[in-house]
């Protein structure tokens, strides 16, 4: 089975799993309640928000990873991979922001709060956008690849900071998984979460692989144009 086929399979599976998780969220996973007994419907967004956020960190890692590989080998294919990883990161980061803001309004009563996790994640969003601004303002292709790789590596430093900040600093952002006492999920909630997370990672992989395939075809077409058209 070639890569494109696997990607298509992943896309279908990821779609099924995330959709399944959506239904599990409402029909199987226990509703969490407030201390006063009211049902916390806002919590349902957790099964989308957290998987997509964690996927965004993971995909962004590949921006830095392929950045390093490009600088070591000067092989342009790695730069293309880094660029596409950043594109997928941008998609996931924006989804995380959108769902996060919705939840913040419901849970905290405000759309936005300058609190450590939100702030560092906002900075991450700006860095991902800056990556593309930088790419677009360099004309020379070789140079663009080097600059983008270097910036991708630098920008990735913010990702672990943003990820761990809720554990380091005083933050009102919840730490659900491995956050010490009182954290953790009941089994149905955990299973729903894992289904959503696995589905999201599959989708991430599928988006990445399909975009890469598209880009490779484009590059081959350009190469052909040069050979045929003279």
């Amino acid at each position, binding site marked *: 089975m070639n890569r494109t086929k696997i990607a298509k399979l992943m896309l279908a599976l990821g779609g099924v799993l995330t959709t399944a998780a959506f239904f599990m969220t409402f029909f199987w996973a226990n509703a969490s309640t407030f201390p006063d007994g009211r049902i916390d419907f806002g919590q349902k967004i957790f099964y989308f928000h957290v998987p997509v956020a964690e996927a965004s960190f993971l995909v962004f890692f590949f921006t830095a990873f392929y950045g390093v590989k490009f600088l070591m080998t000067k092989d342009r294919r790695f730069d293309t991979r880094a660029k596409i990883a950043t594109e997928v990161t941008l998609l996931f980061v924006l989804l995380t922001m959108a769902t996060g803001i919705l939840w913040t309004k419901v849970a905290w009563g405000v759309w936005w709060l300058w609190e450590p996790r939100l702030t*560092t994640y906002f900075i991450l969003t700006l860095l991902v956008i800056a990556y593309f*601004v*930088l790419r677009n303002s360099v004309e020379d292709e070789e140079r663009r690849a080097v*600059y983008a*790789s*270097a910036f991708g*590596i*630098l*920008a990735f430093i913010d990702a672990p900071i943003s990820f761990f900040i809720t554990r380091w600093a005083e933050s009102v952002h919840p730490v659900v998984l491995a956050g010490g006492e009182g954290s953790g999920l009941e089994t149905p909630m955990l299973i729903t979460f894992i289904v959503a997370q696995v589905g999201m990672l599959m989708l991430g992989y599928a988006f990445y692989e399909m975009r890469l395939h598209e880009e490779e075809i484009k590059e081959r077409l350009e190469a052909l144009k040069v050979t045929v058209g003279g």
Partner: protein
Amino acid sequence: MASASWRQFKAILRKDLVMEMRTHEMITSMGLYAILTMVVYQIALTEAGEALDVRLVMPGLIWVAFIFMSLLGLNRSFVHEKDQGCIDALLLSPVDRPVIFFAKFSGNLLFLLAVEVLSLPVFAFLFLQGREGISNPIWLLGVVMLAASVGISGVGTLLATMTVNTSGKDILLAVVFVPLMYPLLRAAVGATFAAVIGGPGSIETFWSWMAWVAGFDVIMLLVAFGLYEFVIGA
């Protein structure tokens, strides 16, 4: 070999310093920029008047001034190199790339520190008269300014080397530089606040923020240093 690198380092640094001595361009533009920033602060704070304790916002305000000042200086420092073809000559000469990085970094650091040291008293003169001064020993401010400026100049030197070759130049430098500097600035403002406001436990708070600044400096300088060779050769 080490002494040869040291001589090359001194030569590049001296070139930057001599050029500055002759033109005074960097210090004048950055210094004027700092004063203009203070004027803008006056506009921003004027309606709050006496209700606002300027000391509470001072740590943030001075770092806003410093970060934008550094953008101006970093950009200038490479525009010269490029316009006059100096960077090509440097690359042609048998100088190790790390030497170029450390020389440019040191020059930028010196200019930034000079303007910071000049503008801090101006800020105090304009905004802090008749108010309580800086609670903790003033050398603590020197420590933050030095440590944070190291990080700013290190990453700034790398990024300015890139952005000078782009179509956006100074605007692009701001776009890539300011978000990258966020963790460092946050820690620097925290440390400055602890130094300015004082109170019980403020010295401990100061040093814990300083640990963040130092950690960030080390990581960022190592990464910037490692990447410089690739970037300057591109």
